[in-house]
């Protein structure tokens, strides 16, 4: 189990809790991560809306680097993941585009063939390491903690291009939560969008879309929300205070975690090593409960 680790703009710029917790936990599960040199943005959503060719160039460029390393690539962002998947399909379907991409890649000493596979973090944990592989390493079971799973749009849709999990009834993140001893259950808003991509054109609507989901999660009695997407996390965690203001709900309080953060707590890592000091939502109660530091 060895992958080229692709961070992506958002993770490497400010989602350090995700990166730190991935680097802390995956090696403990026998997954080796190799950093990538020379990479760039994946092109989504920056270029996909204005220059489809530019978008595929950037994604293919990063895939070409993974190819050169002889490794499959693990992007930490749902958006980058889908971007790579879309580019693989686009270049396969359009040899002309592939040729143009390669003619330009040549100038950068690169070549895209399409041999590097793209894997999602949920696939690595659920399908490769497996629930048993995780369970046997758990030192602290997350007993009595109820966590809502939020896989995020770009991890599960569109099902004609990718099969990380079922598009309408995803269960893998739930299974991974249960593998740590925590509880989870389905809820109607589980596969709903966080709205973060709307921020570029309408900030207020973004906050309302995210707020409705957080209110629902709180109303069902969950102790927190768990995701593997940096865009969704930034929305639900980083902007939770703004969301409270936008929807006028002062009682809204939902601790938000990256899956690898709670995985790390279960594996015995310290909260600091998992970057939990950077979560902006009120996570202390849940963390203390897990570590047995309450009352």
């Amino acid at each position, binding site marked *: 189990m060895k992958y080229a680790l692709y*961070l992506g*703009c*958002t993770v*490497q*710029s*400010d989602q*350090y809790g995700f*990166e*730190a917790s991935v*680097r802390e936990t995956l090696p403990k599960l026998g997954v080796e991560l190799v*950093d990538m*040199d*020379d*990479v*760039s*943005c994946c*092109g989504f*959503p*920056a*270029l*996909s*809306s*204005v*220059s*489809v*060719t*530019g978008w595929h*160039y*950037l994604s293919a460029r990063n895939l070409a680097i993974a190819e050169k390393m002889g490794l499959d690539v693990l992007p930490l962002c749902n958006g980058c993941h889908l971007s790579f998947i879309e580019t693989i399909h686009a270049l396969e379907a359009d040899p*002309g585009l592939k040729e*143009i991409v390669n*003619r*330009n890649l040549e*100038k*950068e000493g690169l070549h895209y063939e399409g041999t590097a596979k793209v894997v999602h973090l949920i696939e690595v944990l659920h399908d490769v390491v497996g629930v048993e592989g995780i369970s046997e390493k758990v030192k602290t079971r997350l007993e009595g903690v109820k966590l809502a799973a939020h896989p995020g*749009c*770009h991890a599960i*849709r*569109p*099902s004609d291009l990718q099969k990380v999990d079922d*598009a*309408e009834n995803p269960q893998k993140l739930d299974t991974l939560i249960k593998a740590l001893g925590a509880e989870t259950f389905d809820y109607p808003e589980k*596969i*709903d*969008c966080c*709205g*973060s*991509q709307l921020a*570029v*054109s*309408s900030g207020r*609507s973004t906050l*309302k*879309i995210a707020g409705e989901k957080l209110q629902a999660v709180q109303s069902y009695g969950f102790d927190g929300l768990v995701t593997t997407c940096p865009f969704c996390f930034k929305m639900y965690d980083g902007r939770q205070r703004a969301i409270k203001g936008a929807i006028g709900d002062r009682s809204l309080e939902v601790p938000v975690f990256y899956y690898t953060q709670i995985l790390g707590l279960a594996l015995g890592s310290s909260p600091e090593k998992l*970057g939990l*000091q*950077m*979560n*902006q939502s009120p*996570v202390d109660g849940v963390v203390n409960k897990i570590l047995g530091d309450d009352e």
Partner: protein
Amino acid sequence: MSSDVDQREVEFISLMLQKSVGEMHAEVCDQCGKCSSACPVSKEIEGFNPRQLIARVALGKMDELLADEAIWTCTTCLKCRERCPEEISPYDVILVLRNLAYRAGLNYPGGYDDFINGILERGFISEPQEVRARGGGKLSRGALGLPGVKGPKDMGVFRGIVEKIIEAGKGN
């Protein structure tokens, strides 16, 4: 400007028009509304409705559509693509409309220029920030023991290539 990219743009635009307009006859879309009922933006923003958008494409109202700011409000959640029984995918149509609007020099959110400039300057839309800790203080990648961020090895060559591709699409 390299001619292969220019040629590609001409092909792209005609292909996109063919896909979004030529093949989209009224009878292809049943106007069932599964897209709109799934759409998170339709609930919040008046004027954004994927079902109506497809109807307007089928009616050939391209000028009006390309200038409509609503095409920039899609969150790319892909539920419409997932649930469309005719495999029309309003998401993909919206992506085409955005690309065409950008090429036509029509209005688009300024944020996209920031994204593009970031990519051309450093290879990424954003650069590493100092992040606020919940208990106070700020943390950098270095302070957390995370490795430094390395962009494209030869930024000059990278920038030249990406700039040409984007400019070719901008139309002039």
